């Protein structure tokens, strides 16, 4: 499948992005990028339900492509590191890894601003990173340390970053979708001209509250975009065994939907841009991202009892999101193999450093058990049933 249409083809024009000035004089080639717009075709066209699909030609820049590569490598490396940390029992409980699905987070981020909101379920490490979270916060939170984004009190399934519009981080399947529609309601209420992306999985797509929230959002014209990250397995149950109609983008019925190749970061970017414009004018939209996770559902799931290893390695060979961007960068002559490998090494070092730093962060103080139950200033602290003498003064 052609990733890039060559200039010889009649279709989209491919502009040579390299400016000769960027090629340095010493003879050693550096990675060269700039912000001249180029157009790349997505791997597959979009399939639409009740709306006009956006064009297959995505406008991007080599700088953006390199950012994609770097970010996705970072996310991949982070998840694999989390895997080994879990196996060495530094991370406990549940750990749901996102490797294979990186393109969704990265493409979405490229299409929106930090004033738009994203809310997702428990597979949230990479989305948190894309929204501006640091590696230290991720690893510290996974290991339950003070430096974590939720001070160690949330864990893997509860990453939040309010100032960047990342609303988590939720453990109960499907419960985040009504919350997401509530965020969209608040955006409409304050007339922000921003949108909310509420992500959920193919397993959650069968939850009733999703359809309730969709109905209300369509009724009240809320700028909510429901994104189904369809990795084809709801824990151990394949989509065809859980859903009578696995065409999740069509399940909105009166709500338009779009099916996107979720392993193609550029397709995701195009779809999200289209969705944002649509939602601001016409109300909610459903995006179905066709993606795949290499790991099992969580670290307690080997991931091979309900699917074959051939399937996993097949997808890794043919549709891996990082490989796709790598091939793109190589074919556009933005960088060569060695430079990309250097980026990966850099990323690995960053991750290792962050882990070392996170390991040094202390565990939360015992008094932290009782903080943040209630908002301070009201005086209602959780001391069991006891209460202080001081009366509470309301604002």
């Amino acid at each position, binding site marked *: 499948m052609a990733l890039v249409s060559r200039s010889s083809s009649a279709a989209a024009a491919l502009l040579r992005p390299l400016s000769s000035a960027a090629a340095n004089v010493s003879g050693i080639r550096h990675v060269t990028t700039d912000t001249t717009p180029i157009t790349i075709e997505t791997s597959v066209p979009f399939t639409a339900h009740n709306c006009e699909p956006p064009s297959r030609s995505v406008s991007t820049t080599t700088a953006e492509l390199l950012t994609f590569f770097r970010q996705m490598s970072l996310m991949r490396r982070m998840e694999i590191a989390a895997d080994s940390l879990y196996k060495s029992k530094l991370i406990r409980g549940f750990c749901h890894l996102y490797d294979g699905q990186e393109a969704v987070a990265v493409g979405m981020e490229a299409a929106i601003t930090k004033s738009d909101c994203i809310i997702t379920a428990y597979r949230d490490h990479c989305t948190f990173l894309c929204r501006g979270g640091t590696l230290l916060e991720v690893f510290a939170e996974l290991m339950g340390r003070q430096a974590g984004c*939720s001070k160690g009190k949330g864990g893997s399934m509860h990453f939040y970053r309010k100032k960047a519009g990342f609303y988590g981080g939720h453990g109960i399947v499907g419960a985040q979708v009504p919350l997401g529609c509530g965020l969209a309601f608040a955006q409409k209420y304050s007339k922000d001209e921003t949108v909310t992306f509420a992500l959920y999985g193919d397993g959650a797509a069968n939850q009733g509250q999703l359809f309730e929230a969709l109905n209300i959002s369509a009724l009240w014209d809320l700028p909510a975009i429901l994104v189904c990250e369809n990795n084809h397995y709801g824990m151990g149950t394949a989509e065809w065994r859980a859903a009578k109609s696995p065409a999740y983008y069509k399940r909105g019925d009166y709500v338009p939907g779009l099916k996107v190749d979720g392993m193609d970061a550029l397709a995701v970017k195009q779809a999200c841009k289209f969705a944002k414009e649509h939602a601001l004018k016409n109300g909610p939209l459903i995006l179905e991202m066709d993606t795949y996770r290499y790991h099992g559902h969580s670290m307690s799931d080997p991931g091979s009892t309900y699917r074959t290893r051939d399937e996993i390695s097949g997808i890794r060979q043919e549709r891996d999101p990082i490989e796709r961007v790598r091939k793109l960068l190589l074919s556009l002559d933005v960088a060569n193999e060695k430079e990309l490998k250097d980026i990966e090494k850099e990323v690995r070092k960053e991750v290792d450093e962050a882990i070392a730093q996170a390991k040094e962060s202390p565990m939360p103080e015992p008094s932290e058990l009782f903080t943040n139950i209630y908002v301070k200033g009201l005086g209602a602290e959780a001391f069991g*049933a006891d209460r202080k003498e001081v009366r509470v003064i309301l604002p």
Partner: protein
Amino acid sequence: MAAVFQAFGTAAVLLPANDSRVRLLGSFPGRKANVFEVRSEKKIVSDATRVSGRGQHLITNAVATKADAAAASTGSKSGHELLLFEALREGLEEEMERDPCVCVMGEDVGHYGGSYKVTKDLAKKFGDLRVLDTPIAENSFTGMGIGAAMTGLRPIVEGMNMGFLLLAFNQISNNCGMLHYTSGGQFKIPIVIRGPGGVGRQLGAEHSQRLESYFQSIPGIQMVACSTPYNAKGLMKAAIRSENPVILFEHVLLYNLKERIPDEEYICSLEEAEMVRPGEHVTILTYSRMRYHVMQAAKTLVNKGYDPEVIDIRSLKPFDLHTIGNSVKKTHRVLIVEECMRTGGIGASLTAAITENFHDYLDAPIVCLSSQDVPTPYAGTLEEWTVVQPAQIVTAVEQLCQ
């Protein structure tokens, strides 16, 4: 017709039971003269007439106010009279005017005006974006309220009946209660969830639920129960202004209570209990509708020579152990009268809390009168027997004070 009496002094004025005026409580010799204010709107319904079923109204609003409670509606002619649902509406309206972030969402709250008229005319005044009619989808619109609260809006979610909020239990427990904690303090959830609950008049099992027992272990939320127009308005305003999620329990049968409340603005504290009637012999702790059964029993008890101290605990989570403790230290006997189920109810927690903290001050085991652990039957006689009646309260106090 409202009759307002004020009694100072020692005589107890007794009127025949079928008189439309109310029996007065006198004050006792040797005690400071307290101001008693009693008013009645309708006929007294004694136990004998209660069984007939039709045309019974909640009547007496015998509220003893402390002499120094300046803001309370005492004999001053200022203030205005209204019904409890109007008091709730007033509180709501004032808060919506004060803060543009306050919005109401629920079934039939907008154009219909609210199934108990608490939000009547608010949609006309504030518009459809601030008073929102939702479809019948409690799970999702409660979730949406919580999501909106995460961004800083102050939604008030109305459950048409508290029992329907069971459908939203996941959202209330996991998201509403816990998000402030699991996000390390990043998100506040200043939401108010309110609605009528409790046993009504033959509404059937599913519409007569008392959810305070189910919600009470959720960490992170506050629960309050209103019982008079005065505290209904005060608690509504306090709950809206609070940065924490508050569940406000109203009662289906209390919406038509009338009382005179002050014109000036006031707020009740969310964590404070209300001293309804100071006394010496026994502490009776109650909330919501049972307050009126207790006060009715109190009249009988006073005639028999007992001096019960009645406290309306109002704050169901956290308990106001300060006020309760002071009372226990004074009387050494506790009776809890509640409408919750016996098993795992508010009374059960309160018993445990008092025993843990004030065990040394108790002269007798704590007696807890609660509803029977049965689904509320439809038949009127059976329904009466599921709920605590004043006669049972009198018997319990007599036994406790032996």
